[in-house]
């Protein structure tokens, strides 16, 4: 099975995941814009097991629908590398950019599409949701 490693800017915090992502999507919500500093987040969900190397600072944010997300960022460079949802130990969401791989699988879903910056074009066939479908 293939494994991939995502890393922060300075390399201190890394996560190794196994197999192909369960899903890849972008999120244009304002919280994702502020966290990333980009105009959307690109996220890939992977099934456990995964391995974390290095030290992370946790930041907890409660989503619009009450889910508690625990983000882990590197205290040295600030990069948020991955997050989990409280109560779900089976899945991890990894920031796609942290793989530093322009050939990473294409996103198929766009959530909070109502907040998408109008110049951003989605790949043909992307499923869009005004907010979060779950």
């Amino acid at each position, binding site marked *: 099975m293939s494994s991939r490693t995502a890393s922060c800017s300075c390399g201190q915090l890394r996560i190794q995941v196994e197999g192909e992502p369960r899903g890849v999507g972008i999120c244009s919500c304002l919280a994702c814009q502020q966290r990333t500093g*980009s105009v959307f987040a690109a996220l890939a969900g992977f099934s456990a097991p995964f391995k974390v190397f290095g030290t992370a600072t946790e930041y907890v944010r409660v989503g619009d629908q009450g889910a508690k997300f625990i*983000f882990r960022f590197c205290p040295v460079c*600030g990069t948020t590398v991955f997050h989990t949802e409280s109560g779900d130990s089976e899945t991890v969401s990894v920031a796609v*950019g942290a793989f*530093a791989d322009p050939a990473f699988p294409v996103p198929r879903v766009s959530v909070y599409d109502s907040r998408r910056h109008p110049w951003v074009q989605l790949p043909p066939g992307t499923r869009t949701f005004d907010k979060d479908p779950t």
Partner: protein
Amino acid sequence: VSTRTASCSCGRLKVEVQGEPFRVSVCHCLACQKRTGSVFGEQARFHSAGLKVTGASTEFVRVGDEGTKFTFCFCPNCGATVYFTAEGRDDVVAIPVGAFADPFFPSPTVSVYEHRKHAWLRMPAEFEHDP
């Protein structure tokens, strides 16, 4: 003169800038991908006159491909980078556009490091493109 405020996720680190950005650009380099966790960074450059920073930040220094030393300032509580500067350019501040949380922020006009671009991304033809 218009005023805009950029903020981290938790609101502890904020930057207020005056006037319009003189350059808004997208960067596909791997360092911008890692820093943002998105597939590109988007930055707005402002003249730093009138710049007001509120809150504590942690600095991370990265030397670019051309030797320029960039200092990134992020919130130690939530990790979001809210501004950065380049050594020798005290008159300019770069703000990650997402920190404005404004889908109607002026569109970028420049796209750089396109050889690192994720193939599915379509950059508008009217942008200035740099390989």
